[in-house]
C-alpha cells in the first residue's frame, strides 16, 4: 500500500487559502443557485424519510450536509442523483424544473455522486473507467474503440486536476485514495456541475485527506458545487462554506459554517445536550497483559511494546504505517515471521484467530462490513458467533443461555433494533458497530484490539462507544486503540505508540500528547 502514495501538487493549498476570501465576497454579491430543492418529501414503509425539505445550493460553494444516521441525508442524495423518486416537491437546476430525476437525467444536468462504495471496474484501466458509458468518444469516427484516444483524453482530465495517476493502470492495482480520485475524474470528464461526496475521507489517511481537500478547493475555483457529507466535524469547519443540519427527515437549519460553533452544531444534530467526553487519565497501571519482542512480519520490523491491564494504548500513524498490519498479526489473522509474543507473561504462538481468541484476545477490525460483522445473518447469531462452542454441550447449543447473553449485550451496548433476529445489514452504521463490539465483549476478552471503531458512526453513537471503551479499561481490560481521527486518538488513549513505515517511531505519555507532535512523528519528520 505504501508504494502508491498519491502525489498532488502542493501548490494548491496556497491557491485555496487565497481564493477562499475572494469567493465568499463574490457570493454575497450575486446569489447564484445551481440547484434548489423545494418542498421535497419522501415516505418509506411508514417512515417519513424526508419531510418538506427545501435547500438552495449555490454555484461554487462547498455545502456540508450533516445529521445523525437516519436523518435523511442519504435519501436526499438519492433523490438529487435520480436513484429515488420523491413523493412531492420540485428540483430546480438553474432554470429547469423537475419533479423527479432519473440517473441519466441527473448526469445530463451535471450531477455526479461519489458514493462510499465506488462504481469502478477493477479489471479495467483508469482511462477506460473514466470514460465508461461515454459514447461520444467512439461516435466521432466509428463505433470502434480508440485506446490511444481514451488514454490521451484521460490524461488531459487527470492533468487538469493535477493528479498523477497513470491512465493505463488497472483499477485493482491502485490505492483506495486513487480510486476515489478516479471517481472524481469520471465526474469531471462528464462536465459535472454538482459533485456529491458521501463520507469521502472515511477510507483516507491524513495525507490523502489533505490532497482531497486541495482538489476540492481547485474544483470550487472552477465553479463546481460540492455537497459534502461527513461525520467528521473538523473537516466541515475546514472546507465547507455553508452547512445544513438535518434531523429525523427535517431540515433544521442552513447557515454559514463560520456562524455556528461546533458544540451548537452537535446539539442541533442530536436535539439534546451531548457531552463530548474528556478522558482524564485515571487509570492505574496493572500487570502487563500483552508484550511483543522484536516482532516482524506483514512488512513490520522490530515491533517491541507492551500494554498493561486497564490501559488504553493508542496507535497513531498514517495509512500504510503498519497499524492494521500489527493488529492482524497480534490476532493471528496474518502470520508473524519472527519475534515473540507474551500474553499475561506466557510466551505464546498465535497462528490463527482461533488461537488468539483462546488467549482472550478480541479484534474489532477496521472493515466492519466485510470483516467485522456478517451482515446477512441476524444480530443474535453475530453476537454469539465466537462463543458458540463455549455455550454448547456435546455440540448442542444451549439456546436459553444464548438468549440471555444476547439480551444482556443488547442492553449493555444500547443496540437499537426491533428484534434481535433481524439481519445486521438492516441496522445503521453505529448500531452495526455496536453489534461487533457486543460480539467481542461477549467473549470476555482480557485484551481488546480496536481498529477504527468509530468509522462511519454518527456523533451520538461515537460518544457511546467512547464511554464503553473507557468502561472496559476500568474493568481491567488492556486496550489497543487504532484511529485515524487525531481528536479521539489523543482524547481516549492513555499512552500513544506512533508508527511510521512499519516501525515504531516513539511512545508518548499523556502529558506529552500534541497533535503536531504526533503528526510530525507519523510523517517521519521527527
Amino acid at each position, binding site marked *: 500500500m505504501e508504494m502508491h502514495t498519491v502525489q498532488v501538487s502542493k501548490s494548491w493549498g496556497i491557491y485555496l487559502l487565497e481564493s477562499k476570501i475572494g469567493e465568499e465576497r463574490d457570493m454575497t454579491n450575486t446569489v447564484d443557485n445551481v440547484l434548489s430543492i423545494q418542498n421535497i418529501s419522501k415516505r418509506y414503509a411508514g417512515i417519513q424519510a424526508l419531510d418538506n425539505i427545501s435547500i438552495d445550493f449555490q454555484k461554487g460553494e462547498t455545502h456540508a450536509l450533516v445529521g445523525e444516521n437516519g436523518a435523511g441525508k442519504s435519501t436526499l442524495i438519492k433523490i438529487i442523483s435520480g436513484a429515488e423518486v420523491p413523493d412531492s416537491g420540485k428540483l430546480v437546476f438553474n432554470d429547469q424544473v423537475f419533479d423527479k430525476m432519473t440517473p441519466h437525467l441527473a448526469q445530463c444536468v451535471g450531477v455526479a455522486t461519489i458514493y462510499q462504495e465506488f462504481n469502478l471496474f477493477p479489471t479495467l484501466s483508469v482511462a477506460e473507467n473514466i470514460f465508461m458509458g461515454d459514447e461520444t468518444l467512439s461516435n466521432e469516427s466509428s463505433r470502434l474503440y480508440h485506446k490511444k484516444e481514451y488514454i490521451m483524453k484521460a490524461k488531459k482530465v487527470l492533468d487538469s486536476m493535477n493528479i498523477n495517476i497513470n491512465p493505463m493502470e488497472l483499477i485493482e492495482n491502485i490505492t483506495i485514495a486513487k480510486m476515489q480520485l478516479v471517481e472524481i475524474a469520471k465526474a469531471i470528464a462528464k462536465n459535472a456541475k454538482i459533485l456529491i461526496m458521501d463520507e469521502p475521507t472515511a477510507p483516507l489517511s491524513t495525507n490523502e485527506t489533505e490532497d482531497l481537500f486541495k482538489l476540492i478547493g481547485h474544483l470550487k475555483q472552477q465553479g463546481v458545487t460540492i455537497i459534502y457529507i461527513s461525520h467528521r466535524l473538523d473537516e466541515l469547519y475546514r472546507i465547507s462554506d455553508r452547512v445544513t443540519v438535518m434531523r429525523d427527515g427535517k431540515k433544521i437549519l442552513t447557515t454559514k459554517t463560520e456562524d455556528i460553533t461546533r458544540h451548537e452544531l452537535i446539539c442541533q444534530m442530536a436535539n439534546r445536550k451531548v457531552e463530548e467526553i474528556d478522558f482524564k487519565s485515571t487509570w492505574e497501571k496493572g500487570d502487563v497483559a500483552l508484550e511483543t519482542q522484536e516482532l516482524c512480519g506483514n512488512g513490520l520490523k522490530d515491533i517491541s511494546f507492551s500494554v498493561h491491564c486497564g490501559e488504553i494504548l493508542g496507535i497513531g500513524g498514517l495509512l500504510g504505517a503498519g497499524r492494521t498490519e500489527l493488529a492482524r498479526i497480534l490476532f493471528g489473522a496474518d502470520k508473524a515471521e519472527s519475534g515473540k509474543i507474551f500474553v499475561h507473561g506466557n510466551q505464546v504462538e498465535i497462528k*490463527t*484467530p482461533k488461537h488468539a481468541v483462546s488467549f482472550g484476545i478480541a479484534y474489532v477490525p477496521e472493515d466492519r462490513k466485510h*470483516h467485522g460483522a456478517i451482515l446477512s445473518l441476524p444480530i443474535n447469531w453475530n453476537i454469539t458467533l465466537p462463543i*458458540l462452542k463455549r455455550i454448547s454441550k456435546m455440540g*448442542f447449543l444451549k439456546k436459553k443461555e444464548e438468549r440471555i447473553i444476547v439480551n444482556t449485550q443488547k442492553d449493555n451496548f444500547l443496540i437499537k433494533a426491533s428484534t434481535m433476529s433481524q439481519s445486521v445489514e438492516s441496522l445503521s452504521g453505529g448500531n452495526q458497530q455496536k453489534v461487533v463490539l457486543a460480539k467481542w465483549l461477549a467473549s470476555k476478552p482480557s485484551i481488546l484490539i480496536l481498529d477504527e471503531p468509530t468509522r462511519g458512526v454518527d456523533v451520538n453513537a461515537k460518544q457511546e462507544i467512547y464511554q464503553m471503551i473507557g468502561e472496559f479499561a476500568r474493568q481491567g481490560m488492556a486496550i489497543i486503540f487504532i484511529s485515524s481521527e487525531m481528536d479521539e486518538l489523543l482524547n481516549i488513549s492513555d499512552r500513544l505508540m506512533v508508527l511510521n513505515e512499519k516501525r515504531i517511531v516513539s511512545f508518548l505519555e499523556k502529558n506529552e500528547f500534541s497533535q503536531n507532535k504526533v503528526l510530525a512523528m507519523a510523517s517521519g519528520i521527527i
Partner: protein
Amino acid sequence: MILKLVNFVRQYAIIVVLFALVIVFSILSPAFSTLNNAMNIVRQISMMSIVAVGFTFVLIGGGLDLSVGSQIAIMNVSVAFMIVNLGFNPILAVIIGIAMTTGIGWFNGFMITKTGIPPLIATLAMLTTLRGATYLISKGYPIYGIPDYLKVIGQGNIFNVIPIPGVIMVVVIAFGIILLNKTYIGRHFYALGSNTEATRLAGINIHFTRTATYTLLGFLTGIAGLVMLTRVGSGQPNIADGFELMVLTAVVLGGVSVNGGKGNIPGAIIGAAIIGVLNNGMSIIGANDYWQKVITGMVLFAVVVFDSMSRTKRKS
C-alpha cells in the same frame, strides 16, 4: 398466529407449488392419488432427498459438489465388485463403500480449502475421474450378484406399506435439521457461507468447517448409494448419471442459495418432492421422458424467477 402462518407460506411459497402439482395430477389421473403411488414417490425421491440434505450443508457453507452422482456409481460398482469378484462379506463391503464416499467427500473439501480451487472445477474433475474409474473397475459391464438380504434395504417395506428407503430418508432429514439448527456446527456452516473472512476472524477454524460440509455430504451420498445399489440389485457403471444436477435443481428449488449462507433442510426436501411428483405424475399420465426434462427445467426457471422478483420487491 395468522401473521406466523402468512410468514410461513411466504417463506415456503414452494409448498404451494407442490400442492398445486399434486392436485393437478390427481385430477388428470386417478392412479396418481393412491397410497401405493405415494409410497412409490417416496421410494423414488428417497435417494435424492438423502443427498439433498448433505448438499444443503455444502451450499450453505458456500461450496458446491458436482461429484455426488459419480460417487454413487463408484460406490455401487466397488461394493458389487468386492462382494462378487473378491468374495468380501457383503456387510463389510457396504461399510467400506460408505467409508470410501466419505473419504472422497473429505478429499474434495481438503483440496478446495488447501488449494483454493473453485469448488465447481475441483468437483467437476472429481466427477470425471470417478466415472472413469467406475468403468475401469467394471470394465463397462454391470456386476450382478447382490445377496437378497441386502436388497431388502432398497426394496423392502415395513408393515408392507412404508418403504425402508423412506424410513432412512426420514432419519437423515431429522439428522440434517438437528445439525443445522441445534448445534454450533450448523451455525458455523451458515457463517462460513455468508462471509468466510469474518467467520475466520471470529476465531472459527474455517478449514475444518468447510471440510466437514463436504465430508458429511460424502457420508450421506454413501447412504444414498447403498439404497441405490440394493434397489437396483446390481452394480451399474452408468448409474446416477446426471444425478448431481437433479439434486442441485431440487435444493435450489427449495430456496437454498448457491451463493451460500441461506437455506434450510425442509425447503430442500420440498424441492426434491416437487421433482419426484413431477416425474412420477408425468409418467403416470403418459408424458414421455423428454417432456419430463423440459418441464422440470421450466419449473426451476419459473420458481427462481418468481423468487428473485419477490425478493427485489421486498427490498424496494
